[in-house]
């Protein structure tokens, strides 16, 4: 009897917990299919707002800008983060190692407002016009730490004798990396890229500090529209963003799992 009751309690706690986390999102998704113009009144099922998004030039431009920023910054962060992870796992002792690892991981814990503000100050003082490249660099700055963490977790379990075997069989260092090291850590690198892409996709704070006119990202566009009132269109585009992020996160976790299974 007690076990049944405790099972009931478990189920309730789980339901409440998930409801707390996901109910708002579920409501948003449901109302994105609302036929009514009013956001809070259900007027029947419709996909008209998804069609309307395609006609909304501003929204589509912002979405395209966001994808470009995410792809470019994730690529850059993956390169830098992977190199940082290699340095941290391969060279156990070098001058300033603690400082270096601190610098790599600091952007992860740094409040976004601070990162955004300091980057803004940097760009202003250097006299750089803010736009696509400044947002991209800013996003790469705060996401490369995440990539480094993901890749490093794979590298610490990497069997170094594989690289020695490759060298022993006649592979020069560059070949050792491209033929053995990189293929084996590739799932972690891909996972790091997807994570960086996702983080860039939904960033509002840093983007608002570092972007300029003509490079408005989707979260910024949504935020500014919401201030004038929530429209069903916003629900629809948000639902699409949620779907994209979900797919990417699942892909990243599958990549990590594959890398774990390959060990």
């Amino acid at each position, binding site marked *: 009897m007690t076990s049944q009751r405790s099972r009931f309690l478990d189920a309730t706690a789980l339901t409440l917990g998930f409801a707390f986390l996901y109910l708002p999102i579920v409501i948003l998704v449901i109302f994105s299919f609302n036929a009514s113009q009013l956001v809070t009144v259900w007027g029947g099922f419709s996909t008209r707002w998804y069609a309307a998004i395609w006609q909304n030039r501003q929204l589509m431009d912002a979405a395209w800008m966001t994808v470009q920023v995410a792809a470019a910054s994730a690529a850059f962060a993956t390169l830098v983060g992977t190199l940082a992870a290699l340095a941290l796992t391969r060279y156990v002792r070098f001058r300033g190692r603690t400082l270096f690892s601190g610098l790599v991981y600091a952007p992860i814990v740094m409040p976004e407002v601070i990162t955004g503000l300091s980057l803004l100050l940097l760009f202003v003082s250097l006299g750089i016009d803010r736009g696509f490249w400044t947002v991209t660099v800013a996003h790469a700055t705060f996401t490369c730490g995440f990539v480094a963490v993901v890749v490093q977790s794979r590298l610490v379990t990497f069997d170094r004798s594989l690289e020695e075997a*490759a060298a*022993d*069989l006649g592979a020069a260092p560059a070949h050792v990396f491209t033929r053995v090291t990189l293929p084996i850590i590739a799932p972690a690198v891909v996972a790091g890229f997807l994570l960086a892409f996702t983080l860039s996709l939904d960033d509002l704070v840093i983007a608002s500090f570092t972007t300029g006119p003509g490079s408005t990202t989707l979260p910024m566009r949504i935020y500014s529209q919401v201030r004038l009132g929530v429209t069903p269109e916003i629900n629809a585009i948000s639902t699409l963003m949620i779907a994209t992020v979900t797919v990417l996160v699942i892909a990243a976790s599958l990549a990590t799992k594959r890398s774990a299974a390959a060990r």
Partner: protein
Amino acid sequence: MEPPERPSRGTFAPWDEPAAQPLVLFDGVTKRFGAETAVSDLTLAVYEREFFALLGPSGCGKSTLMRMLAGFETPSAGRVLLAGQDLAGMPPHVRPVNMMFQSYALFPHMSVEKNIAFGLEMDGRPRDEVGARVAEALRMVKLEGLAGRRPHQLSGGQRQRVALARALVKRPKLLLLDEPLGALDRKLREETQFELMALQERLGLTFIIVTHDQDEAMTMATRIAVMDKGRIAQVGTPAVIYEAPATRHVAGFIGEINLVEGTVSGCDGRRVTVATAVGDLTVADAADSVAVGQAVAVAWRPEKTRIVRAGEAISNGRAVISGTVHDIGYLGGRTTYHVDVTGLRLKAAVANAARSVERPIGTGEAVKLAVAPDALLLLVR
């Protein structure tokens, strides 16, 4: 065409020929890791077509020695020469040496075939030659049917064969084997030992094997270097290492031995008498010269010991030690008696030549151990 055969072990002894040039020469090599000295001023020569074993407990420097040869470690002092050429400054990928790793280090993202082809591809060999040589290597290790498998789909023994094929396919002057059989179970290990020996003889290659397993070294090697704390304690053929160990460490590491400490009480040329806790023992043919009063040890192998009841007679000329049987270990092929003699425990091993003995010696019985003077060894170090 008949493959060239290594002369039988009786006549194959390039190390005894002063004119022979060693294939590998460690010349006064020292390797330090920080404050620790892994290899200490070590000189060692290995000759072509040898099956040379580096034997010692873990941490004795045997793996470091091999890694210096492969190019993964650089000597702190001294030179490593291969066929007369100093290997200093030569990175691993250009050395004509291949290594089989203890963990096998098979590339998990490549098939068996790709693993074996890797070294040939790195050398830029034409594709049809790579294909032919990989097929030949697969045949050699009897893995023809598994070319497309990934390493994780293979058994331990199959992985070991792939690692061996991958290391041999480039036909290296010298193959290094780091504990190659360590991960196999006992039966497979014994089979593989003989396969490795046959392969080495057939291909006419030089093998250097690192192992901590004395049976493995004794079975396979032409010569053994017993290592201890970064130094070589003794180099010799398995028979020399076993029958004439140079130090207490070597005597104790290879096989079982009875070892009694004492002081030299008489010295007549190579005939040395030692006063020990179990009485005076006379060594017929001492290898080292000693002086009266010197602290030495006398050692002998259990199987060179006769054991009889206290009342029975023993032929003259043998050292006789009286004691009590403490324990008897029956091992099928032989029986080992553990005999207590004034605080020491000595062993006598007797071959079980007959199926049954009328009245076997039992635990607690008073016995006499007899050892011939030429079976006694004098150990100074």
